[in-house]
């Protein structure tokens, strides 16, 4: 077989731009894990169902297994490694998963963290997220360990932590729900 054509792509991941040389068929998920050696992004089903490989593309969640690395040039990719705050503190959703025991084996966790982190941006600090809204947010991610209850709790807790960090009290029901 003749050798495959290679493309050199500038991938901007977590604020750092790095060149990678890949064939067109290299999935973004594989470029992140194998070429950039950022193994926080996990690959589960590799056809878009499980959500484990979810990363943020220009701030919105996408499946990194349903994109080619050559398509990511010019876009800003954020993986789970890039969620922590500038001062090194964990992202509110990371702290919430620890508080609420939102993970067991941890395989699906990076996809949940990126998905929830992006969804939190749709809410003003201080606005509680209901359990129904939390279920809608995580509806596209599969977890085989937790039964989802603690993940749903962690969504509300993440918004509480985020609000505290912004110096805003959380309005309405959510604070009592996971006390």
């Amino acid at each position: 077989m003749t050798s495959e054509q290679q493309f050199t792509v500038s991938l901007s991941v977590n604020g750092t731009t790095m060149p990678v040389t890949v064939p067109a068929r290299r999935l973004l998920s594989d470029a992140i894990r194998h070429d950039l050696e950022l193994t926080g992004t996990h690959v589960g089903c590799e056809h878009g169902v499980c959500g484990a490989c979810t990363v943020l593309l220009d701030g919105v969640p996408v499946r990194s297994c349903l994109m080619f690395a050559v398509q990511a040039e010019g876009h800003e990719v954020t993986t789970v490694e890039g969620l922590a705050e500038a001062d090194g503190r964990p992202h509110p959703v990371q702290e919430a998963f620890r508080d609420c025991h939102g993970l067991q084996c941890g395989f699906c966790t990076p996809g949940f963290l990126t998905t929830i982190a992006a969804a939190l941006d749709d809410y003003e600090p201080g606005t509680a997220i209901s359990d129904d809204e939390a279920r809608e947010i995580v509806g596209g991610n599969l977890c085989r360990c937790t039964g989802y209850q603690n993940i749903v709790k962690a969504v509300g807790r993440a918004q509480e932590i985020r609000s505290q960090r912004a110096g805003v009290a959380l309005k309405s029901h959510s604070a009592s729900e996971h006390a």
Partner: protein
Amino acid sequence: MKPPAFGYAAPASVEEALVVLADLGYDGKVLAGGQSLIPLLSMRLTAPHTLVDINRIPGLSHISVAGDGSVIVGALVRHAELLADESAFSALPLLRRATSNVAHPAIRNRGTTCGSVAHADPSGEMTAILAITGGSVQIAAQGAAIRDVPAREFFLGPLESCLGAGELAVSVTFGAPAARTGSAFLELARRRGDYAMCGVAVAVTLDDENAVSEVRAAYLSVGPIPEVHDLTSAVAGQQSTSADWAGAGEFATTLVEPEGDLHASADYRRRLVAVLTERALPQAAADAVARAEVAA
């Protein structure tokens, strides 16, 4: 679960894309959102010679409402953008009702509405919406005028459309609803966001006395293409608040020929046609009354 090797072109304009596609003929495959195509590649169910990635082409991300109320959606409009678009929603509420059922937010952020139509999956929401609104697909090819193909001619079979070699679907147009017409969309899936076992888009038109004058329904996951069925005869002339919607649902089951698969038997799908139709029609009738009041 890795895609096979393929050639890759990322043209910077529609004109350039059409030249590349014309050169490739049946060896070329257009890549837009990729949310259906990339799984097919990864599962090795398809192996195109060259992918023509249209994501770098400017000017294909427009959503516009024409003077007659029809909604034109460019080839690179993501489902999430259509879902959020207020002008499209007020012109054609069915668009948002259906789009919110397309997979999950992460898929909707990437997948395109036009690509979903071009994929011609009979379980796709937007194919059924294009059919029931009497919409059309705008198709470009090198050296040819854009041809406007109505939905009833566009879909040929499961995953098969009339798009030929060298052609590019540059936009889809969802048709404007007639006066005093309301709509509703319902589907049932094993899990939220999964492919529907059955879904229905309905349009109910009322006369000046709020009696039913026309009822149409398009189903997903029921036949090989999104067919539009006329259910008017089951409820014609009946008052919108007391029409025999269950009768219309039963009538619908005589018009469809669903096939069974791993997820639902043919009989179960036929039952879902009856139940979802019965539930959707009064919603659409109420919507027709509400829209007529707003218009008055």
